[in-house]
Each structure stands twice: as structure tokens, then as C-alpha cells.
């Protein structure tokens, strides 16, 4: 388990990350979400020990991270880059060796991954000769070549076409099966919604929301329901237990008033209409995010990412 506590980073009196805490568990994908400039990358860099936190601690399996910890992490940075003039296999071998693999292991793993991602034939090519998508694959391999315990992925799907996005997703799920710890940083809420079991929403360096995804959704409890029916829709408006958000002939979205249970409303509705469908409308993460950012954690302050 990776435990981050009260992590804070200041740059020249600007607080880039402000008292952030979270845990990542084996076999789970943790989503670090937020708009650009929220402090996600700074948080990641502190976990990677690229920069030192002003305050706070990072523990792995109950111990403070120390020398050698970097070999357990695989990192896919948001901005991609490789040695353009170098050969694919040389670059993979170098990054593998830097993560503690021996030369033989690095070569073996590199070849296996190239085969897996279907670009084995580029082994001896220079990076610059590869297409952008294939360069992204090479970059992805550098993050996973040493079979890391912790995988930190910053916007992993950007730059991939749908087919390769699927491929990356499969590899991620495989990692989940192997009980790895995965941190996924993104501002694409749909991606997080699909993959993450728990998330932390950041804005302006502050935590906006955190917890397991289902819990967050439940707590957010928008009390929105969707109803499909036959009959005169004006009957819906007559029910005092709820407010009609919008309605089009034989379906509508309604919001229950505070304290009203769904079955109470349904009972009234069934009396007047022929109901064919009634279900809770789950708020999308996007909606939750937008609403949360609006209500708290927003400081109208220009920020620079470092």
C-alpha cells in the first residue's frame, strides 16, 4: 500500500500542492483527477522523489520511501519524449537498466514487450523513424519494462488511437490482476469513471473530493430519477413530492424533494400513469467535478506548473 499523508509543496510562496492525503491499494486503480494546473504533476513528482515535498510523508508498505524505491516505480509522464536519434532497443535497454534490470533481462523484456505491442520489427530502428503512435508505445514500454510494483501513469491514453487505447487498457487490467498499485492521473473524467475504484479530485492544489468512486456518487446523491410512462404527462407535475427537470412526452427526469423516498414518489406516479421504467440517474463524475469545484476549493488565482 502506498500512503501519502499531508503532502504539501510550495514554490516561491505559491502553494502548488496543499495538504493532500490518499492511499493506493494493491490491485486497485487510483485516479488523481483535476483540471490542468491542479497540482497533479507536482504530486506525482513528489512520489517519484524528483522534487522534495515541503511537508508531508510518503510511505510504501508501512515504511518511508528510501533508496531503491525508484526501482519499484514505473512512470509514464504526460509529456512524452525519447532520445530521437537512438535505436529503440538501446533506449529500452537503457531505461530498463536504470531501473535495476541486468543487461540480459532488459534486452529480454524489451523484446517481449515489443512483440506484445506488435512493433517487434522496429527493434533496430531509430526512434525518430517511428510513427507517433509507435513512439507512444515505446514510451509505455519504458514505464512497465521492469515489472514495477507501482505504476504511475500521467494521461496514459492521450496520443493513442482507439485500438491502442484498448490495448493499453488491457495491459492495465492485467496489472490490476497482478495486484499492482496503479495511479492514473487524468483530466478526462470518463476514463477515470471507467477504470478507477477510488479517486482524489484536486483543484488549485487542494483536495476537492476523495474516496471510493461508488461512495462518492452515492454521497453526491443528486436525487435524480428517470421515469418512462404512458399517459398524460401533466399528472407528473401534479405530484408535489418531486420537481420535473425536463420532460418529453413519455419520459422525464425528476428530482425528489429533500426527505422524499423514491418509492413514495413511485407510488403516487403509478396511481396516475402507466409506468414502464423508473431508475436512479447516476451523476457523472464530470458533473460531480464541475459542481464540487464550483462550491469549494476554487481560488481565482493564476498558477504555474513546474
Amino acid at each position: 500500500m502506498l500512503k501519502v499523508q499531508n503532502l504539501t509543496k510550495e514554490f516561491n510562496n505559491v502553494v502548488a500542492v496543499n495538504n493532500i492525503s490518499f492511499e493506493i491499494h494493491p490491485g486497485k486503480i487510483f485516479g488523481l483527477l483535476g483540471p490542468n494546473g491542479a497540482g497533479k504533476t507536482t504530486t506525482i513528482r513528489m512520489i517519484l522523489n524528483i522534487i522534495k515535498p515541503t511537508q508531508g510523508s510518503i510511505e510504501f508498505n508501512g515504511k518511508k520511501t528510501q533508496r531503491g524505491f525508484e526501482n519499484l516505480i514505473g512512470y509514464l509522464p504526460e509529456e512524452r519524449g525519447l532520445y530521437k536519434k537512438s535505436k529503440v532497443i538501446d533506449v529500452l535497454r537503457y531505461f530498463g537498466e536504470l531501473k535495476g534490470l541486468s543487461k540480459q533481462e532488459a534486452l529480454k523484456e524489451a523484446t517481449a514487450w515489443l512483440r506484445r505491442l506488435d512493433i517487434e520489427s522496429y527493434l533496430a530502428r531509430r526512434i525518430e523513424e517511428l510513427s507517433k503512435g509507435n513512439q507512444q508505445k515505446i514510451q509505455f514500454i519504458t514505464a512497465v519494462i521492469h515489472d514495477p510494483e507501482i505504476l504511475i501513469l500521467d494521461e496514459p491514453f492521450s496520443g493513442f488511437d482507439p485500438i491502442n487505447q484498448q490495448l493499453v487498457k488491457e495491459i492495465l487490467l492485467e496489472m490490476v490482476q497482478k495486484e499492482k498499485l496503479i495511479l492514473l492521473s487524468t483530466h478526462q473524467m470518463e476514463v477515470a469513471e471507467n477504470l478507477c475504484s477510488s479517486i482524489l479530485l484536486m483543484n488549485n492544489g487542494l483536495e476537492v473530493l476523495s474516496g471510493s468512486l461508488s461512495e462518492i456518487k452515492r454521497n453526491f446523491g443528486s436525487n435524480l430519477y428517470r421515469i418512462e410512462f404512458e399517459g398524460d404527462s401533466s399528472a407528473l407535475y401534479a405530484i408535489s413530492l418531486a420537481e420535473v427537470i425536463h420532460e418529453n412526452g413519455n419520459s422525464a427526469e425528476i428530482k425528489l424533494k429533500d426527505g422524499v423516498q423514491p418509492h413514495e414518489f413511485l407510488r403516487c406516479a403509478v396511481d396516475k400513469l402507466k409506468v414502464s421504467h423508473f431508475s436512479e440517474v447516476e451523476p457523472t463524475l464530470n458533473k460531480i467535478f464541475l459542481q464540487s469545484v464550483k462550491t469549494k476549493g476554487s481560488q481565482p488565482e493564476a498558477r504555474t506548473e513546474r
Partner: protein
Amino acid sequence: MKKIMKIALFEFMEKIKTRAFLVFMILFPLIVIAISIVPTMLVDTKEEITHPVGVLDLTGRYLGGIARQLNEYKLADGQPNYIVINLSSSGKTPGEMKSFADKLVLDGSIDGYLMVEPRQSDSVSVSYRNRNLGGFNDLPRFEKIFNNVYSSVRLLRHGFNPVEIQRLISNVPLKPVKIEQPSGSKETSFETMYFSSIIFLMLLFMMILFSGGLLIRSVVEEKSNRIIEILLSSCTPDELLTGKILGLGMLGLFQIFVWAVIALALLGGNYIPLEIFDGIGLSMLYFVLGYLFYTAIFVGVGSVVTTEQEAQHFTGYLSIVLILPLVISLKVIQTPDILLVKILSLIPFTSPPIMLLRIKVMTPPVWEIILSTLILILSIYLTIMITSKIFRIGILSYGKRPTLKELVAWIKEK
């Protein structure tokens, strides 16, 4: 430590494979050889054509002697080197003869002419009038010839016979000899000494600028495409820095090795003087230390600059510092123990090149060698310490170049 070696090895292998490096490594010695050997070869080549040279002897006493001696110089194929033309004619004033002779020179009929003019009492003045002042070989010859003739004519008037005169005025050539041990000696010429000392300086100079440029470019590249983040998530900044300096050091040693092989090959062909290998141990010491010192500076700068253009500006400034020893190299060789040279021998920026020069001319006192080496090693250590601090923060700051104040803050930061 293992990671440092991996980094060093990668840096070394990737740089060595670049075309720029290969071209530099092979081309550069050729250029050095060309600019240092070709002039000597040109001067030393035997003349191949006969030169018409005039003599305007207004005293009428020296023409015969000069002509006879000039005729003794032969070309390689046995033809005379000079054709002597008598320019004095009766019935003309000296001024007329002079302007006629000048005209002949200007229209190219003769290379130039020796003019002997009488002065008060017994003395004369002699000049060689020609269009260009060249003629490395000609001028000393003419001077020698005239003085021989001048002396013998006067001795003749004092009643000596020609055989006696020949003996009296025979010349003894001066041989420069460099002393390294008591009573041990080695013949050398100023040219070979100058060349053999300056060649190390040029090698150091070019290597620093070239590899420094490579280094800055690679750091700037890693910064701009954010490879640096992957590297730093795998190793510490200090490991990265040390690895890079070591890798470049290996590159430097490899270069020296290749060049040494080329030098040895050329030695066989007598193209370069053996003096190059004088004091090679001490030279190598300063060479390596100087190289490390400048490399460390280049890494620090590379971490701060954000574009290649900025990098080039900086390389420009550094090359001015580096070129200073070249500018004063002649002075250093002529007077290796003046105060200025001693001071420059202690400043880490200039001590390697200055010491490289001094070692060739005259081994500096032991205390100076030890002191300057210690200062240099200490400076390298301090530079790497400071550089690593700048590097640690500099490589992660993109966009704007830090101000001096920020740099100082970085260095102070723990």
C-alpha cells in the same frame, strides 16, 4: 554506483555513434596538422625557379663579391638560384638609376634589388628593395652575403690575402639547445617547441568546446522532451550528473587515444616532431583536469539554459576565456616565469592551458605544479557540488531562464 556507470556508458555510446563526433575526431587532427605543418613545409620546400635579382652598387666596390656569392646558391636541379643583374650604369645619376631599377621591380622583370649606398667616411647602407617583403630564405642570405663581402673588401684593403680573409670571416651557426638535466641536452628549434606545446592547447580547446557543446545539447534535449523526468524517476540528480561527466570523460579519453594513434602513425612518417611527447605525463594530468573542470561547468549551464541558442551564446563566452591562453601563448613560451604567467597558472580557468605550455618550455617548479593541481582539483570538486545543486533544480524548470538571484537561492537550498 552501478547506475552512474550505466549512465556514463549510455552517454558515451550514444555520443560516439553520432556523425558529428566521428567527423570531428578524424577531421580535427588533420586540421591541426595542416595549420601547423603546412607553413613549415612551404617554407622548407626548395625553390624551383631561378630568380632574377638586381644589384645597384653605388659605391662600385661590392658588386663582384655579391654576384659571386649569390651564384653559389643552386636549385635542386643544379641551376643557379639567382641570376644577378647589374643595374648600375655610367652616365646616369644615382636618382635616375634608382627610379629605373624600381621600375624593373614594379613591372616584374626582377624580383628586387640590393642597393648599396655610400655614407660618410667608410660606411655604407644597404637595402633590399622589392615589392613584397616576403622571402623567408632570401633576406637572411642577402644579409649574410653582403656582410661577408663588406668585411672581406675592407680586410683586403688592410692588406690581408684572400685565403686569410676566408678563414677570418667564416661563420659559425648558432644551435639552440634545451636543457632538462645537468649536462643532458637536446637540440630543438623554437618552431618545433612552439608547435609541440601549442598542439596540446589546441586539442584541449577544441575538445572542451566540442564535447561541451554535445553535453549542453543533450541536456537541453532531455529537458525539452522531458526525458529528464523518466531519468530522475530512476536515479538521483547527482548520479545523472556524475554519469554524464564520466561518460564525457570517457569520450575525451577515447578521442585522445585515437589521436595518439594518429600521432604515432605520423611520427613514423616524420610529419610531427618527437617533442610532442615531452613531459607527456604532466601534460595528461593537466589535460584531464582541465577537461573535467570545464565539463562540469558545461553540465551546470546545460541544466539552466532552455534553448540551443542560449547554449551557443554561452559556448561563445567560454571560448573567449579559453582562447586567452592561446593569445598569450607566445609570451608564455618566451618568458615562462613572469608573475602574470605564474598567476594564470593558479587560476583554474587558465591553469590547464598555461601549464600545458609551460611544461613544454621549462618544467615549472614543483611547488607550482602541486599548488595549481590542488587548486584545480578543489575547483573541480566545488564546481561539481555547485553544479549538482543548480542541476537538481535547473533541469526541472522549463521555460524561463533563472535570474542570478534565483541561481544563488538554488545553490543555498539543501
